[in-house]
């Protein structure tokens, strides 16, 4: 029986779960919860929604993708009620995981398929524009990427020295095409199969401080346990310094799911 002092808690704040949850993004939260609990951590789940005015700092912030209409609503609320708080948290090196629409809203601006432009939070130096509103203009399909070597090196510390895979598998479905506007931000991965951030550059997602952004739904974390663990590892280290345990988990089924789709895509 552990003493009460040794119980460590990680708080995951889910931003706009009602509006920004599409294509299975919830799976990311399920993965974080399980991987924390299996290691003996207490998973504390907080919701930050449209009406939330007061919120306590969390250790990990998660925000998913949404339909265009919902995104506009969320954007207004972000700029009006949450921008300062979120900027502080990013500067404080808190961990963020942003999927699809969230990635776009954290950038400088987003122009949708009919030319409607909205201002983003301006935290990430990226701009997003949708070339059109038809289905042909969407980046849609299975996504296979190779992790940025710098991030892969970090993963080796957090996950396992003998990294079973340096790939990320997922499914993308977005009309917006995202471009970096300076080099303070780096891609999460290089595209092997699929589109990624845009149809031209063959890069996917972003890393800026401890903000991880990706276009991978699918969900991202369950089938990519190495990335899930990097996110948890940074968050726990941020909070508890060097004094923490991070036991290895049995990820056989995770890798089975990862590899079965990866093998099919590169065949």
């Amino acid at each position, binding site marked *: 029986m552990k003493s009460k002092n040794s119980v460590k808690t990680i708080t995951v704040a889910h931003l706009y779960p009602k509006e920004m949850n599409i294509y299975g993004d919830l799976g990311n939260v399920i*993965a974080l919860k399980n991987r924390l609990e299996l290691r003996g951590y207490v998973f504390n789940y907080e919701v930050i929604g449209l009406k939330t005015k007061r919120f306590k700092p969390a250790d990990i912030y998660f925000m998913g993708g949404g339909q265009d209409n919902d995104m506009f609503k969320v954007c207004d609320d972000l700029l009006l009620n949450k921008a300062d708080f979120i900027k502080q948290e990013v500067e404080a090196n808190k961990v963020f995981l942003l999927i699809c629409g969230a990635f776009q809203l954290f950038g400088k601006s987003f122009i949708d398929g009919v030319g409607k432009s909205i201002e983003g939070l301006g935290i990430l130096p990226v701009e997003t524009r949708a070339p059109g509103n038809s289905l042909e203009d969407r980046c849609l399909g299975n996504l296979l990427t190779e992790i940025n070597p710098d991030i892969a090196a970090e993963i080796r510390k957090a996950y396992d020295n003998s990294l079973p895979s340096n790939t990320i598998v997922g*499914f993308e479905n977005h009309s917006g095409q995202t471009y970096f506007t300076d080099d303070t931000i780096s891609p999460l991965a290089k595209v092997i199969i699929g589109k990624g951030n845009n149809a031209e550059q063959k890069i996917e997602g972003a890393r800026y401080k401890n903000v991880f952004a990706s276009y991978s*739904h699918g969900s991202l974390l369950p089938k990519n346990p190495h990335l899930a663990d990097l996110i948890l590892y940074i968050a726990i280290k941020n909070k508890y310094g060097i004094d923490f345990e991070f036991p290895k988990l049995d990820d*056989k*089924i995770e890798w*089975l799911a990862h590899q*079965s789709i990866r093998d099919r895509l590169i065949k």
Partner: protein
Amino acid sequence: MTFNKYLTIFVAKVASSAVKLLSKGQGTALPGLIAEKMNSKILKDYAKQIPEVIVITGTNGKTTTQQVVTSILRGSGKRVLANSSGSNMRRGLLSLFINKGNARGKLDYDCAVFEIEEATMPKVLADLSPNHIIVTNLYRDQLDAYGEVERTKKMIESAILKVKKARVYVNYDDPQLRDLIGSIPNLVTRYAISPEYLLDFKYEGKSEPKKESVDFLAEKIKINEDLGSKFKVAGITYGFNSPGIYNVYNALAAISLCSNLGLSTKIIQEGLLLTKIAFGRGEIIKKYGHTYRLLLTKNPAGLNLVLDLLKNVSNPNIILLLNDKIADGKDVSWIWDAEFEKLLDVKPASIIIGGSRAADLLLRLKYVYQDSVQLSEHEYILGEALRVYFEPKQKLLNKYLKQDDAPKHYFVIHTYTAMLEFRKLILGKAIED
């Protein structure tokens, strides 16, 4: 114009025969493609010959609703033309007309009942000029195919705006459809189920209060042992063999429509009971001494309802089949939005997993039971005692089904093409749709 029309029909009919001769396929699209190229007005010419045209659309329940309406109408003595889900797009419809009409393009039917894919609505509705349109519901479904629920709603709305004389029937419990009828001028018939059953249904969007009264309300719903249902509408009892409360909606849509058409209660009751269950939509198959109930699911809402339904069965044996072809939806991420955690209440005796994305299902289940022990390459124990057989190659599944001695009742939860494969595996033949 007339000559062109006859020529078009002739060429398309030849193409249709050729396709049938050359392959065993149904030749559903090619004649339509040819006819459309030769004469763009031909769909309209055919459709206007049918006095009563009924169109059914929506994300879930199209096929079942169509089967009920068709069964009731045929029971009333009407000559009914109905399409299959394989021909629910423009060219398929046109091919159907060409095959069913004579060489002069004449059709001889009292009514037509068409299920139409949501995205096809804007492309065919004005030409079909239906008298009645049923919209079953708008769930998140096949988002990789159509983008978003909002987009789907807009497609249906823009189509209906071109046929203002049609009466529109909507599931009034669905907030998306309450919103839809606010922006169309058509006459509307609203149907709904008694509020106490609504907890199981997670509709998209905010549930703002219902402003108008409901025309047809299903009450006192009972699910039988075999998962079929009994319910009352305006004091009259109806029975339906398709499983679960979600099929009560499909029956209710048909009851609303057929009542408005002036058919007698007796004919509606009988037609409902005699409805042949659509392939995979609760269909029952017997093989190897076992009984299989096939339950098609393609989105979180559908899966949640099936799992709720299985709470009525003690320790069911479940087969989960997930494919990711176009007809299934290439994106399988919806399994993370579906509440597989309901399995903890269902308490299945065993689960067999198959299909091209079987590994994704296994992982999803691992997260439900939070613990896994691998016994062999294909056998796992999840949680404390649930035995799970993992076999992605569906054609090898029968080794698990044959080896059982005791007769079992299996509940097969599957996506569309996984169902086709499973039927072929069990029955040794493909569907003749």
